[in-house]
């Protein structure tokens, strides 16, 4: 019985302990359930995102770049079809073997193979390696023929930038190339970047990147744990960049570029009312298409080491003393401030009796001297002596106020070109700040003939001419077509003088800000006087550009020559009096010319600069003359086109 009692006791113990265990089990299971609840219900979203991140991988597809058009919608930068060879890295078993086969098929050199290995290091295992982005048709068909032997190789039809006018536009449009690390840091590129995407390196291509670049597409694939694509889930199509219209007329641009062939220099042409840059040529030039797929060493060396500096856009980044082309502005300033009566007579006695100031001699360019000169004649024949005297009376500060007002000393095209130069319009304050020296009167005197500290770009001279030719109104120069401006309105406003007159008459001589399309002159007659003198310079006997004139009033223009010294003229030079051809190239004067046309009803201004071209009348004016004819011939077309009649283009 004892044993039976013990047995009952033992049974109870076992059962009791079982229940304690069962309670523990229930607790632990409850723990599991709450954990499940946490993961699957509370934190579900978090894990769903993580799961999608796991299984979905995105590939960005590069967008097509926006095209660039000229004023008449002619394509200046397009996207051409190219043949490319891509390697899908995760499909390749043996990279070395594949590269070896490709190397033999399309003939890569050692350097290119090395580059491929370097490129691969930077890519992830599921990325695509672009072996060549511009195969010839021959190479492309070879690859296709042997495709079954090339695992992971993918021949691709793609597009790349193409510039049909190649050399004629490179300084305006610029070019594209592979993005550098610095490029990728730019915000507009950073947010749109796709490996392999070409980005603007210079010019419009670079400064208008945000419009041209477009928006990349996204291909979403479901991938497995080893990164292999299983299926495409989603495809957001890429958006092409917006098209950009320039104000350039490619026909005129081409012609200007042709005129500059073999020379170093620049030709700019501008609409004097609308401020549209019609042509902006710079020479020598180079082919932007070479940069699209990476320029080779030899070509790059050739461009970089050319002594005529093709990489410099001379129209906006070349700085030159304006020389005599500055004279109309000096005359205008003197008249506006009432410094001198245009009837005042100054005698130019030639090299034997130069202008003297504090013992320093200042010579006229003409050895024999001009004789007795009034202002109109002094502009027409470009007499230096007259302008020495005038500048002395005017003073550099007043001159700089007017020079700046008419467009010198600051960017003409805003921030479109990051290499555009400001130039320099000196005054006493500038010299004190920059050089910590006081101004000398002698410096004022040579400033009067556009020499000395003053430095301008050819486009600034073109703008200066335009703003005088339009009757003294401030215009807004631009090279990107601006649909927000009503040009007819602007032209009427300026021609009919309908602009507001917010300033007191006196104030026009102060250093004031004047807004677009408002008058800048103090007295209208002063402007007309200068324009008339420029007419004389071109169309009257003894005028410096008389030989380049047109008698047909349709093409008749007015202009001013300029010869800018690149070094000081010594007494020895004066005695030798060599012809341009006899002087060493680097020491020759720059030839300049500014003009506006047609004279009767001006519409365009032009500036020509030939580096080391000798005298303005011989080297620069004839080119301007030729271009003016072309521009005026095309004016009607432009006018009609810009007024909405597109049928003519």
């Amino acid at each position, binding site marked *: 019985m004892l044993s039976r009692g013990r047995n009952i006791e033992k049974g109870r*113990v*076992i059962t009791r*302990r079982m229940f304690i*265990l069962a309670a523990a*089990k229930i607790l*632990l299971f409850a723990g599991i359930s709450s954990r499940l609840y946490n993961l699957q219900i509370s934190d*579900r979203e978090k894990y*769903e995102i993580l799961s999608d991140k796991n299984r979905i991988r995105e590939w960005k597809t590069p967008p097509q770049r926006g095209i660039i058009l000229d004023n008449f919608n002619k394509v200046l930068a397009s996207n051409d079809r190219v043949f490319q060879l891509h390697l899908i890295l995760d499909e390749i078993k043996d990279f070395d073997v594949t590269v070896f086969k490709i190397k033999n098929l399309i003939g890569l050199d050692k350097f290119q193979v090395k580059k491929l290995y370097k490129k691969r290091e930077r890519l992830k295992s599921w990325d695509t390696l672009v072996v060549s982005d511009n195969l010839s048709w021959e190479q492309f068909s070879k690859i296709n023929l042997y495709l079954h032997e090339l695992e992971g190789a993918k021949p691709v039809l793609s597009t790349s930038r193409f510039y049909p006018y190649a050399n004629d536009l490179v300084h305006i449009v610029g070019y594209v190339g592979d993005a550098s690390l610095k490029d990728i840091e730019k915000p507009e590129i950073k947010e749109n970047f796709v490996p392999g995407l070409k980005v603007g390196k210079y010019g419009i291509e670079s400064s208008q990147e945000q419009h041209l670049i477009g928006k990349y597409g996204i291909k979403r694939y479901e991938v497995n744990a080893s990164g292999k694509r299983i299926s495409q889930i989603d495809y957001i199509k890429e958006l092409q960049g917006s098209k950009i219209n320039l104000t350039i007329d490619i026909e005129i641009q081409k012609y200007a570029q042709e005129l500059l062939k073999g020379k170093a220099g620049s030709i700019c042409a501008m609409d004097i009312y609308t401020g549209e840059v019609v042509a902006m040529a710079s020479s020598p030039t180079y082919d932007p298409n070479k940069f699209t797929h990476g320029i080779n060493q030899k070509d790059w060396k050739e461009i970089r080491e050319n002594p005529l500096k093709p990489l410099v856009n001379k129209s906006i980044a070349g700085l030159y003393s304006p020389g005599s082309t500055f004279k109309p502005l000096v005359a205008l300033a003197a008249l506006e401030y009432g410094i001198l009566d245009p009837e005042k007579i100054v005698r130019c006695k030639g090299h034997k009796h130069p202008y003297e100031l504090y013992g320093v001699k200042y010579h006229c360019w003409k050895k024999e001297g001009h004789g007795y000169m009034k202002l109109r004649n002094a502009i027409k024949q470009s007499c230096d002596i007259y302008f020495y005297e005038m500048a002395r009376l005017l003073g550099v500060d007043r001159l700089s106020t007017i020079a700046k007002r008419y467009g010198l000393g600051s960017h003409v095209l805003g921030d479109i070109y990051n290499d555009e130069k400001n130039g320099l319009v000196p005054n006493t304050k500038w010299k004190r700040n920059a050089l910590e020296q006081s101004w000398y009167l002698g410096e004022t005197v040579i400033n009067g003939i556009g020499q000395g500290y003053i430095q301008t770009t050819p486009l600034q001279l073109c703008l200066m001419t335009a703003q005088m030719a339009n009757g003294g109104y401030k215009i807004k120069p631009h090279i990107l077509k601006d649909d927000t401006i009503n040009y007819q309105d602007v032209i009427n406003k300026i021609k009919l003088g309908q602009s507001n007159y917010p300033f007191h008459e006196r104030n026009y001589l102060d250093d004031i800000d004047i807004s677009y399309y408002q008058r800048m002159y103090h007295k209208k007659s002063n402007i007309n006087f200068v324009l008339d003198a420029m007419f004389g310079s071109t169309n009257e006997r003894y005028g410096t550009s008389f030989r380049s004139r047109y008698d047909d009033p349709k093409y008749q223009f007015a202009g001013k020559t300029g010869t800018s010294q690149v070094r000081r003229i010594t007494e020895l030079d004066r005695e030798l009096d060599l012809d341009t051809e006899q002087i060493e190239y680097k020491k020759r004067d720059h030839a300049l010319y500014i003009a506006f046309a047609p004279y009767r009803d001006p519409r365009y201004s032009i500036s020509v600069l030939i580096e080391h071209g000798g005298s303005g009348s011989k080297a620069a004016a004839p080119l301007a003359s030729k271009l003016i004819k072309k521009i005026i011939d095309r004016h009607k077309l432009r006018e009609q086109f810009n007024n909405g009649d597109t049928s003519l283009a």
Partner: protein
Amino acid sequence: MLRERIQATNYSFFDKLKSIDYLLILLIIAIGAISVFAIYSTEGGKFSFYTKNHILRLSLFFSLFLVLSFVRVSTWYKNAYIFYVIGLVLLLVVLFFGISASGATRWINLYFLNLQPSELMKIAVIVCFARYYHRIQSSDIQSYKFLIQPIILLIIPCYLVIQQPDLGTSILIAGSGIAIIWLAGINIKYFVYSGLLLLVSLPFAISILKPYQKSRILTFFNPDRDPLGAGYQIIQSKIAIGSGGFFGKGYLKGTQSYLEFLPEKHTDFIFTLFSEEFGFLGSIILLFLYILLIYRIINVGLVSRSFFAKLYCFGFATAIFLYVFVNIAMVLGMLPIVGAPLPIMSYGGSSLLSIMLGLSIVMSCKIYNQEQISVY
């Protein structure tokens, strides 16, 4: 003599059929069916190797279960120690002639099956301990002699299994053994003491762990320590389960497992796959099936007359609970990753065999529940 000791009851075949626990069989079939679907899903919805093998093994071992259910419980009692010794011998065979896979030597090649003796040992220990405590009087139970003996019995197989190395199975063997020691009525203070001792010796224990085991434990506390290495399994498993949500991603639509982000998805991580595809709802239902299974086993223990049957059923129920808990807690990131399959669900012959064997003993306890087994 023997016949005298065991008071055999004569059952007719009809009686036997009547006393079968059909609910238990139903639960086994239900979990088995779920496991077939789950394994089918691990293969991306293709009827191939794993699915075929799993079905074959399930039907084979289920039949074995049915047949062995009719073995008298007294037979198990009589052969308990032999079972234990066979298990030990097999573990020794593994030690010297075992076949290796991924750095561990756990299997004996039986040509039709790679037998994992440690899985059999899980059951053998329970049977052996049930018999051991069956005969000990409750007055003697606290004596040191009866305390030391079972500990030695437990340490030998645990040590052999750790040598393979297989920490997970070893812990599960130890766990089920300790459960029976607890059930037998050993004073609670021993558990408290040994618990404290374990805590104190933990740093030392960690220092003798294999580097991969250490890394697993460190990773458990901070899976982001090495997200592509040791932490990968935990992180991916949590992502799979969490992204399943309430209703799951749908059958055969578990992206985590389908796209091969989940490792060992047909064995240790089968629950993850199931939970990803069937969500919280499915997981709770599966969990409930396991709870029912454990409840039924305990129920058999409660209606059995002999201590052996009681101890065995309660012990086996606790073992099943441990397997389920360790596995699920592991895939949920609540416990470090140690190799521990989910009973019936996981693909793996030895584990399935041992579970079915264990269940057949439970069933035989049920069928012969009135059988008295003499203490002497």
